[in-house]
């Protein structure tokens, strides 16, 4: 099972955090992120992509499998059941999906659209298990949802503007 997925940049700022085995409390989550970053960032790119780090919040037999792309580390924390090499391919699928969705994905995309990144991830991994690995199906699902999103925004559009006016009025009243 995948215990969690963390994307951090080279200076340790988290860009996406998803816990499948829940770690409650912001502080503990941050300590997990820090620990993961410390262990991963110490390794040159020529080294292998596995780290038998220990993350106490997830248990002892945790393996960190990561890939380093430009400014970002994509780290998957998995248990012994998962295939070491398979997860590497899964990271690749995830990154490719991001790349197709954002057209040349960069760190800024992840910063300003972290919700969309989450939606993409939710089509690939769910509850710590692999949901879909076929990029076309993933993108299809994402695009369909975007279309739905836009349609309902269009419908809600007028009401949105009405809301905006009413708040302005409200502000004036106060």
């Amino acid at each position, binding site marked *: *099972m995948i215990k969690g997925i963390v994307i951090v940049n080279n200076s340790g700022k*988290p*860009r*996406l*955090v*998803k816990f*499948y085995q*829940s*770690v*409650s409390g*912001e*502080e503990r*989550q*941050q300590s997990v*992120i820090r620990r993961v970053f410390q262990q991963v960032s110490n*390794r040159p790119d*020529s*080294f*292998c*992509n*596995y*780290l*038998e780090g220990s993350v106490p919040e997830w248990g002892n037999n945790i393996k960190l499998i990561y890939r380093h792309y430009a400014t970002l580390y994509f780290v998957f924390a998995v248990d012994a*059941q998962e*295939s*070491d*090499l*398979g997860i*590497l*391919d*899964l990271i690749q699928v995830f990154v490719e999906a991001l790349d197709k969705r954002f057209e040349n994905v960069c760190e800024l995309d992840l*910063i*300003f659209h*972290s*919700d969309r990144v*989450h*939606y993409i991830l*939710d089509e690939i991994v*769910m*509850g710590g*298990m*692999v*949901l*879909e*690995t*076929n990029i076309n*199906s993933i993108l299809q*699902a994402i695009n*369909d*949802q975007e279309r*739905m*999103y836009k349609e*309902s*925004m269009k419908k*809600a559009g007028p009401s*949105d503007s009405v*809301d*905006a006016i009413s*708040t302005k009025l409200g*502000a004036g009243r106060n």
Partner: protein
Amino acid sequence: MSLKLRDLIRQVRACKTAAEERAVIAKESAMIRTAIREEQEQYRHRNVAKLLFMHMLGYPTHFGQLECMKLVASPHFPEKRIGYLGMMLLLSEQADVLMLATNSLKNDLNSDNRFIAGLALCAIGNLATSDMSRDLAPEVDKHLGSSKPYLRKKACLAMARCLTKCPEMVEDFVDRVVSLLNDRTHGVLITVVQLMTRVLVMDREHNDAEAMTTGAAMTGGEGAVDSPCRTAFLRLVPSLVKLLRNLLSMGYSPDHDVGGISDPFLQVQILTLLRILGANNAKASEEMNDVLAQVATNTETSKNAGNAILYECVQTIMAVESDDGLRVLAVNILGRFLLNRDNNIRYVALNTLARCIAEGRSAVDGGDAAAASVEGGDDAGGNGANTAASALQRHRTTVVDCLRDPDISIRQRALELIYHLVNRDNVEALTAELLNYLVLCPREHRSDICTRVLRVVDRYSPDDRWRVDTLITMLTIAGRECNPNVQSSTAVYISRSSEDLRAYSTHRLLKALRDDDGSQRGLLNVGIWCIGEYGDLLLRSYSYDPPVSSSIPVGEASTAPTTVSFMALEPSAVVDIVECVTTRHTCKVEAKQRALTCFAKLRERFADAADDDTLERLQKLVERHEGSHSLELQLRSCEYGALMNAIKGVSIKRAPVQGVEEDIFGGGGGGGVSEGVSETVKSAAKEALARMPVVDFKLMQRKREERSEAMTMGGKDPFDGGNDAAMGVVAPRSSSVGGEPNLLDLDDIFGGEGGGASPSVALAPVAKQNGSSIAAAAVTPSDVDLLSDIFSMPPVAAPAAPASAGFDMFSQPAAGATMAPPFGNNYNIFSPQPAAPSPAASMSSSAGVIDIFGATAPAAMSVAAPLQASITPAASMASVGSTSSEVTVPGFSHQGLTVEFQCTKPDTWNKQNSVLIAKFINTTDAPLYGLHLQVAVPKYVTMEMKPPTSTTVPVSGGSSAKGVTQTISVTNTMLGTKNLMLKVKASFTSKGTKVDHTTTCSGFPAGQY
């Protein structure tokens, strides 16, 4: 009004300090809270998005949880979507709010829109609680049969979560799986396979837990009944195999192709599932054998995807009961992986190999219990491991090469594997590699590697010489980092080896010491110790010709074994080296302590060979620390000084014949200071500085045989002392050897502050009482100070008690200690037990001392005897014969063990105190083992028992001198009105049968005891 998400992110990014960032976030969270309180519905969406961002940065967001719930209930897709996202990220499954979502989830599951239903399924899959699982499982199940693959696959994983949370529902859903396995969509297949895997893993964990609680009684082969779902899934093995085969033979399909391989993810997942199903199941393993072979041989390995499949396949082959040919194939695949340029591949190969071998080992080692639970797994596991191991030996060089990899993950894995690879045949080559690696590896790993190498050397060493050689080399490389037990083991191995080897080791260590910069702590300790012990061997030259008939092939004649030789050294040169090493300012106190002992011993070793200057220098070196700030050093220095003086006979001249002292010791022994006695003192002192006895029964046996053949060694043979000690005689010798208990404590030779350091611990209170006088003691022995006399008096005290009783004063606690231990085990003999008695002894002695200086103390004369009594019961025990009347009371006689109590009054002024010495007499024709005597006394009697001199009672025949005794001190507080009574329980093993005997002894002379 609160900011837009985009603006918030910009502001945060613009912050230069963490404080600034906190301020921005604090302001924004206040705004959001206000918005929440005022129910600003139109901003809810945006506020949750901002909270998600803040949450990722680690700021508290709990106040937004309810907002997520409201969004989830919204009819609009955009709000619903962010609501679900917020719910999955901000809420943990422990949150109570989650309960509220159940109804919204149920509604959404029934939505016609597949994406809304998908969102709900996703939320269930990520954070359903057991309550939610139970409530929502029927809806999820409905989606398992949905016409849309998008929902089917999500429903599968959501179901996996529900079943994890509510395992009791598993059986209701097993049938579903069968139909799902026929699905055409890969996305659905991969999720179904994972669902099955999840259920089986859960099942296994559940069984393990059950086995634990029922005391692991389920070890009988057929006893482990498969659970219903496992049985059901086992029936599906053929369909899984077919599925995998179809994947293999499927032509190119653009949808699922990754690097020319059709859906590697699905293949990997199927292989994982097969691994779980095939483990411990011969039938299932049989069914999958062919397809595994097919995967292993036909998979393209140019891309990572192919390797991932192969790797998974290898793991499956290793885990299921596949035939040997397949296993060898698997190991060879891993061997090929080892040669791969990709670090990841090499890493997984090393990892898997290590795991296979370790599992194979534990299966074999685990013996019946573990292997029997596997039907027929007995041979399969064992053989499998063997074939794997032997196949692996072929890849040894590749593994060894991995040690030179720059990547620490790989090196660590390789190291792990090498430990498993070592066996009797390759131990020399592999250990050489390990030592090479030791030179290169980071400091923090050295200690661990040293310990592992020690274990390897312990276990597989072909001969003693190689072992000692390797350990010394290791110390020269990593003496700085190695664990203390590596040091002590080296010392133990050297002391246990032959005379020839000791000479070799000492020569080598001396050379290493000379060449080292003094930073190799371990080397220093072992080296100095050995030079001290075996210094005399350094004076002879040494040469050794390795046997030509060793396993080195003839072809390598150029590297033919060369003769190892060391030149004989001058005593002064040896002293020079040790002195030079220990006078470095970096030298640790620890090493200085050893050096002190070393000098004292060298003084004795070189007594005949060295010129007077050198001997004088040694004496000075020892005495240099008499003013040291380190208590231990100071104490030792004084003690050794006294010992060395005793050998020279100097102290007799120096001993002042002043009133007080004459009274003290004259009263005890009566005799004056005569030449004859000083001879015994001398010999006792020599004994104290003699070689450390090797207390190892087997070795002693061997040595004795050797000696009876050769008859070469003189009285100075190190084993003489050892034998006597081992025989458990309270001989003056053994107690005088105890004068340096640290040396006897083989296991703790370098323990320093541990239990072995009893003298320093024990004497510490005394030292505190009168700190300065200790230093003064040895320098100015004429001091009237009683305390200092204790320390400077030994030679004078000697007349009072025979032989080395004087040295007992130095080592009072240790004297008890040397009598204490059972002699069964090898080198743990002197460590644990003395700790207990010694503080007591020292307390009593210091208490006595306080009394002396207390106002209540009468004349010095009357104090003298109690002082002596409290300090040296062991010594007085030896001399009682002359001082007071002795009564022998028969204790009991049972099954060949006769116990007698020799009763004495050690103390003429206090008749309440008595010392009973229990004598154990063995009237059978075989030794009694495991002797343990327990004594209970009435309330009016206080008692203190020393451990027996030995727990083995030899046959009491002709040489009855070597009997076993145990000292019991009793104080009868109602002397005169009530008599001493003892309830005695003795237990021992006679000729293999355990005997327990309880009896009461009341035969003590009435009125006197």
